[in-house]
């Protein structure tokens, strides 16, 4: 099973070789509420860790999606254009957002593990 890591901004990352699949956590989708649109970056655009790279609009608010690891966008989940609700329904599977070709694999190790993230979210719910 591929290990999933998390950022403090509630993105998740799964790494396969140097390709990172990115989405938002179940906690994030629940906080945002029904997601109604997503704006993707262009394919081949480059981002540094923590750069804003995509935007989701929910019925409640607009929210930036931040780049979890330095890299180049190689694919976006086009299904979300018509069905943004997949992010709510299936945040870790069908609701993935984009794939990055990452340039610094070591950054993965500095992201939170599932356990650390759950603790982080628990502390920030307060």
């Amino acid at each position, binding site marked *: 099973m591929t290990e999933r890591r998390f950022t403090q901004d509630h993105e998740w990352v799964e790494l396969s070789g140097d390709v990172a699949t990115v989405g938002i956590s179940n906690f994030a989708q629940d906080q945002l*509420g*029904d997601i*109604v*649109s997503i*704006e993707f970056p262009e394919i081949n655009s480059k981002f540094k860790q923590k750069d804003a790279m995509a*935007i989701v*609009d929910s*019925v*409640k*608010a*607009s929210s930036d999606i931040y780049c979890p690891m330095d890299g180049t966008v190689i694919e976006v989940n086009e299904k979300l254009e018509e069905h*943004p*609700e997949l992010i709510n329904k299936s945040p870790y599977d069908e609701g993935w957002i984009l794939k990055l070709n990452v340039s610094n694999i070591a950054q993965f190790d500095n992201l939170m593990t599932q356990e650390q993230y759950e603790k982080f979210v628990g502390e920030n719910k307060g």
Partner: protein
Amino acid sequence: MRTPFFENHVKLGAKIVDFHGWGMPLQYSGILDEQKAVRDNAGLFDISHMGRFRITGNTSEDCIQSLITNDVSKITENQAIYSPMCNEEGGIIDDVIVSKISQDEFLIVVNSSNIKKDFDWIQKHLDGNKIEDKTQNIALLALQGPKAQAIIEKHASEITKLKPFHFMKAKLHGQDCMISRTGYTGEDGFEIFFDSSNSILWENLLSDGQPFGIKPAGLGARDILRLEAGFMLYGNDIDETTTPLEAPLKWTVKFEKKFIGKEALEKNKPQKKLAGFEIVGSKRVARQGDQIIHEGKNVGRVTSGTFSPTLVKSIGFGYVPPDMQLGQAIQILIGGKNYDAKLTSTRFYKK
């Protein structure tokens, strides 16, 4: 503050938010799910946070006539009327619904954000009549949607004859209610007034509505529904810096009668106008305060914006210069980026 139904909302798993000092349900099953239930079947809203004033006295009608821009003398007993209430400068203090109980008794429903301000304002202009704040004594639920009538009908068959903006007395589950055919969703539906101690009616109405697909609906769904239907939200779309002639409320201003603010409204030309807009080629959602751009210049601001599930478009209201026309191409500046849009009517959804 809490309405009589607060515990019901918590039990249903609602997300509770602070709304002008009231703990109110933002959503239960989900905003889009609830919005769809109201358009397709029925939704039940707790709107007991709205203010309710009883005005009594021999000249209460004259008093109300001077307070509101619409003509209260045109309604008969058991009828209601929507109207702005203006200050001397023509700015909108609030938009209200006045129900005529009898020649010397009226009920005014006001926005929750304005309860104290309105009470003080009305009190200053009572002219010997009496005002009582009944917000805590009277509970208020809205049952809205194409199935709303069928849900009430088995208790009160006369409901089928009730015309829009009329109300009647009826018993629901043994409780005395006043039911008016009014709402804030663009669907057929009712607003139901009853004694706050009978809060069991919330559960009763939900079980009556179950075979019809009723869902409890919160403030999130209510905001989308009212925007689609073209209804103003006080504090967003209208306030004391806007007049009814700038908002699309000219139809409620009756210059043939006297009212507070009349002279100012006759004299001063509208400085801006509220228009609808839809975003073209993107589903980004415009939010309150976003700039409206025309030919590279900032010409106005968004007052309300949402994604309309009914139209599958991003829509909103905003103030623009009064000479701008429907269909005009504009842009909305959202998060530092311009999005193409066009001006539209404020009535996005018509039954």
